[in-house]
């Protein structure tokens, strides 16, 4: 319950690990409030110490509650049902039967055993109980919850999670340095990564022509596991990741990398290759930056890539379809100081133009070259890129086991009825029962037993 309550703010306030931009925005709009909230770790709620504290408390209380009950239950299974109470007339469905005492207990025992009751036969009475699996299921459910908590903890302490952007044609080797960003869990050793390599062969995206919404993404890779072994052709889709043990490779996002060639005034090639651009909308209008710190003076290009170029008076140039049908590369060329030496890290998708001045602007068609005075840029083509997320979570399988057992336990405990039936024969034949938690169905059973004993049936 506490964990539930504590998780509420996390769904109302933006979270750093999910949406860092929103958090920044929040800081800008409500600076004071944001500072206070940040002190309470509201923006990193699910990894905050107090959230962990509740988590651990829950864990301890579950163990403290479930373990003793498990031992008790195991003992109870070995034991016989408790003794028949002295006064049956206070119990549910009490009745005196109209039959001779002789043979009653034999008949009753036969019926109870046939109906899979546990029977404790005494000299003058029978005590029978059924539905132990209710408690078994209940305990299985709670033990499974503990397993899930352990699995989640294991996932938090071991494993790794990283991302990499690859252009079609590029190769990836699963080592920490190959990632654009990677985070390791506390006890994970960096050497323990699944030893595989991937080569991106092809990426295809299909779109619905009416709504422009994507309908399918298919990524073909040549994978080698371990590195250096023979490559095998594999397909990765959004809902079917590539799996190596507890490591999985997911297709997360995609976009375009325009291929450009840049020459200086003398015609010397300065740069040639694919530059990754970031999609800005569903039609993959993408923005990016080309930085040329080695030219003197330094040149920076703020660029947009439009897979299917279109114009509107309000929006200017934009892309009207996510597939490449009529591509344009829009470049605005800046000259001056890129500011790369200032020490503050820069985004590779943006140019800091504060110490630069613009010297040119051009919309390039495919295979077109633009001369911006200090040199030329040629728009030679484009490649698709894919963003792969590579996650190693060793706790995952256990969480799944836990979840499956939890369901099983829950069903068993909710749909099993636990009840007792007693028969006493001291002069007269008495019968009664007790249903735990007042669940229905006991009456029918008592009636059936009565009928059997009175010789009306069976």
């Amino acid at each position: 319950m506490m964990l539930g309550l504590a998780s509420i703010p996390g769904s109302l306030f933006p979270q750093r690990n999910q949406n860092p931009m929103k958090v920044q925005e929040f800081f800008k709009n409500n600076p004071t409030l944001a500072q206070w909230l940040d002190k309470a770790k509201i923006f990193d709620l699910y990894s905050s110490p107090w959230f962990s504290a509740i988590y651990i408390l829950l864990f301890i209380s579950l163990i403290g509650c479930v373990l003793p009950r498990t031992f008790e239950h195991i003992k109870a299974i070995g034991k016989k049902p408790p003794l028949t109470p002295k006064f049956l007339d206070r119990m549910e469905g009490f009745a005196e039967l109209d039959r001779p005492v002789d043979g009653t207990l034999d008949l009753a025992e036969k019926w109870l055993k046939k109906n899979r009751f546990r029977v404790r036969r005494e000299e003058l009475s029978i005590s029978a109980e059924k539905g132990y699996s209710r408690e078994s299921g209940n305990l299985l459910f709670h033990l499974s919850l503990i397993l899930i908590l352990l699995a989640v903890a294991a996932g938090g302490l071991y494993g790794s999670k990283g991302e990499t952007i690859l252009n079609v044609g590029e190769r990836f080797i699963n080592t920490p340095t190959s990632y654009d960003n990677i985070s390791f869990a506390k006890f994970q050793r960096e050497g323990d990564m699944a030893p595989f390599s991937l080569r991106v062969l092809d990426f295809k995206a299909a779109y619905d022509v009416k709504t422009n919404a994507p309908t399918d993404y298919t990524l073909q890779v040549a994978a080698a596991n371990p590195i250096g072994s023979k490559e095998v052709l594999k397909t990765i889709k959004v809902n079917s990741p590539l799996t190596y043990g507890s490591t999985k490779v997911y297709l997360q996002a995609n976009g375009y990398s325009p291929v450009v060639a840049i020459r200086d005034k003398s015609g010397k090639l300065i740069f040639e290759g694919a530059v990754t651009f970031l999609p800005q909308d569903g039609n993959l209008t993408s923005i990016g930056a080309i930085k040329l710190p080695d030219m003197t003076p330094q040149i920076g290009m703020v660029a947009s890539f439009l897979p299917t170029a279109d114009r509107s008076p309000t929006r200017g140039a934009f892309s009207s379809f996510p597939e490449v049908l009529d591509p344009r590369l829009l470049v605005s060329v800046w000259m001056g100081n890129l500011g790369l030496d200032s020490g503050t890290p820069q985004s590779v998708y943006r140019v800091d133009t504060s110490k630069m001045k613009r010297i040119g602007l051009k919309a390039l068609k495919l295979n077109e070259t633009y001369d911006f005075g200090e040199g030329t840029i040629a728009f030679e083509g484009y490649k698709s890129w894919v963003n792969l997320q590579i996650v190693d979570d060793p706790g995952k399988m256990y969480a799944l086991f836990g979840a499956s057992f939890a369901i099983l336990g829950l069903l068993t405990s909710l749909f099993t009825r636990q009840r007792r039936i007693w028969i006493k024969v001291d002069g007269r034949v008495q019968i009664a029962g007790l249903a735990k938690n007042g669940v229905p169905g006991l009456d029918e059973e008592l009636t059936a037993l009565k009928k059997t004993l009175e010789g009306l049936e069976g």
Partner: protein
Amino acid sequence: MTSRNLAYLSNYSIYSAMFLYTIAFFSHAVEVSFSVKTTEASEKTTFDFSRTDRAGRIGTAMMILGFIFLFAGVILRGASAHRVPWGNMYEFSITGALAFSGAYLFALVKYKLRWLGLPVSIAVLLTLGTAVTVLYRPSAPLVPALKSTWLAIHVSAAIVSGGVFLLANTIAATYLILDRMEERGGRSEWAKKLPSLETLDQLSYRLVAFVFPLWTFAVIAGAIWAESAWGRYWGWDPKETWAFITWVAYAAYLHARVTAGWRGRKAAWLCLFAGSTFLFNYIYVNIYGTGRHTYSGL
């Protein structure tokens, strides 16, 4: 038949269903209102439901017909897009309305629940009305993330659980209203026909206990799917968080009843609270939420 025709046919079915639910609504309204009998001798109004039994039966018949049309509408919607019809909020809503009225009809077979017909028909009409006006989106294929067998499994489990939770909620709310009446000196005349407080209490408990494992399953199926689509089985996405909160709330409700022996008023309030977390998740998180469950199409 082309996809477009199927989509139109689906819309017509939904409209027909709405028409039938409207008749059901009026029949149930007539059933209640025309049973009022004011004799000149006394100031008090009394009710005579024997006079309006026919109206009630017409209401039930219309509810069944409406259910059939709604069912057809949902199926056709799926057929038009070649997929299960759970791709956006419009489709969640019509399927949710279907599950809710289905749960009502199912419970009607077992219990004397016709008194619920009026609120149920209002709720279904409101849901469908919002769906066709505000939430409607043309039938379209799914985005890649939704292309998975888990869509059918996870979403159907969630929708059915939701329908039953809301029915349990309606009953718990009725309990609270009647409870207050009895406290203030007896039920109003119109409420005398309704079942006893104990029956209502038991009924809402049984519905919750019955569907809680299904909800657990829906959450777990969601986690398995999230693992294959998003690379993690649990990420405290707003939708996941609220699904978890709903789960905890209902677990607390079940514990309170079984272990702490809560009955009646306290249990009904807890049930209402748990149900409202579900509704909050469905409405607020779908429309304003920022998480990854942003498939409402709005």
